[in-house]
């Protein structure tokens, strides 16, 4: 009975067949496929938006950390030796990155340097300024504690610190990260559910075919691959759409910030600098959601 050909019985990975079947199934259940893609787009867009806020807040924070210093004014009665000793004590405080001693004369020069018309302030006597320590911190999240520790040292007559701005960046970053994480978890679950239902619908429509395939000796992976590809393609389609939408939204916000001259205060990253990792993460997340969704759906139909 082997006329016509000798049957090979190789487990060939029939990529073309799996892709074709996956595509056919997507269009056979167009509405559900559309809903699944929309959910993935929404999920990735929200995840992306909050992640971009968090990334920019983190960047501003690290810039603020680079610039950030506070000043500890030194007791007027302190001698040079006592000042050197105080400098060492401040350097030993936790979270202090560096300590520089600034004399009152240097402080006056710096002050005048900040103004274009130095003449207006040129006659201010040096005594108006005080000797000081300029202190940089390592981690802005511990800014408050560091200031308090330095202020408590004997010989520190006063402190000038701008902690609110730093704390603001920390808050924005933490809140954005937390919201992104929570929303991503919820939306990923919803996306998984919808993809899973889309694939389940496809498997239900093809249950007779699957039963025949199994009865004719199809392996589980042979049955599973077309559905895996279907989920994967839905996930990737959602990821690509979400990426372009994210690009449009981010570019619009960036242009608005630049147009308002606020780029100095909010130095946002341009999308050109971050598009590659954003696209990579979107594609990865889309593919993962799609593949997992189809994986959950197909399992029960393999019990033939």
């Amino acid at each position, binding site marked *: 009975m082997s006329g016509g050909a000798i049957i090979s019985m190789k487990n060939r990975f029939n990529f073309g067949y799996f892709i074709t079947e996956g595509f056919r199934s997507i269009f056979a259940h167009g509405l559900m496929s559309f809903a699944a893609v929309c959910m993935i787009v929404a999920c990735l867009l929200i995840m992306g938006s909050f992640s971009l806020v968090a990334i920019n807040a983190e960047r501003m924070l690290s810039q603020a950390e680079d610039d950030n210093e506070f000043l500890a004014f030194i007791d007027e009665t302190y001698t040079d030796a006592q000042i050197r000793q105080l400098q060492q004590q401040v350097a030993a405080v936790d979270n202090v990155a560096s300590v520089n001693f600034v004399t009152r004369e240097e402080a006056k020069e710096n002050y005048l340097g900040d103004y274009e018309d130095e003449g207006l302030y040129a006659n201010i006597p040096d005594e108006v300024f005080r000797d000081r320590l300029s202190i940089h911190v390592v981690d802005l999240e511990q800014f408050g504690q560091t200031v308090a520790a330095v202020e408590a040292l004997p010989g520190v007559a006063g402190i000038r610190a701008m902690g609110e701005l730093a704390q603001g960046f920390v808050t924005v970053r933490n809140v954005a990260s937390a919201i992104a994480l929570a929303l991503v978890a919820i939306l990923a679950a919803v996306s998984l559910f919808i993809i899973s239902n889309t694939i389940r619908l496809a498997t239900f429509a093809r249950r007779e075919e699957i039963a025949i395939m199994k*009865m004719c000796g199809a392996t589980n992976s042979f049955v599973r691959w077309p559905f895996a590809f279907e989920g994967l393609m839905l996930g990737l389609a959602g990821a690509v759409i979400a990426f372009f939408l994210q690009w449009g939204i981010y570019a619009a916000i960036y242009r608005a910030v630049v147009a308002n001259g606020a780029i100095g205060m909010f130095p946002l990253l341009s999308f050109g600098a971050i598009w590659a990792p954003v696209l990579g993460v979107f594609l990865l997340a889309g593919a993962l959601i799609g593949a997992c969704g189809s994986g959950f759906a197909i399992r029960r139909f393999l019990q033939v």
Partner: protein
Amino acid sequence: MIRLMDVFKEYDNGTKALKGINLRIDDGEFVFLVGPSGSGKSTIIKLLTAEVSATQGRVMVNGYNLNNIRQWQIPYMRRTLGVIFQDFRLIEKKTVRSNLEFVMRIIGASPREMRRRIPYVLDLVGLGDKADVYPNEMSGGEQQRVAIARALINNPQMIIADEPTGNLDPQRSLEIMTLLERINSMGTTMLVVTHEKELVNRFSKRVVAIQNGELASDERGGYYQYEKSV
């Protein structure tokens, strides 16, 4: 080859479908499996295709011991079988050729193999000119021929036909059974489950009768006789 050795099958709901069946079918045999509804015929088919497993006893199919077969081996065991159903179970939206390609693809056949094998098998079942026709454009007899072609296409060692003539008129039934006999004469083992008394008697093959889950009779050149004992 099939061997059932002291096989019992009890379903989860407590139904005792088989009670100590012993049966041996050698390569190349043609066997009718007969018996009233609920006698256990379908359970035997399910055991042989590994849809269910025996509660007790040994089941061997074409060299596979189904008592300790691993899950991943079941597809390979099934490739040694061709199964024909009463209701044909063809994919309506595929042409005859696509129905056969669909099954050949499962075992990894190349397009070249498909181009050579499909016309050969269609000619064998008398449907050489129907390759591009859809099943719903065909008569019941023709659809069953397609189902037979599908069962044959991967060159199995054995064909299991579950009521293959159940939906056909007497003339078509005779044609289908003659075709199965012809296929058997070419070396494929044939196990045919049927209720068709006239056909069984006409072909005078080995007849295995099952009743109440037990082997009622097993005769070579036998005839349909379980009615006599009912």
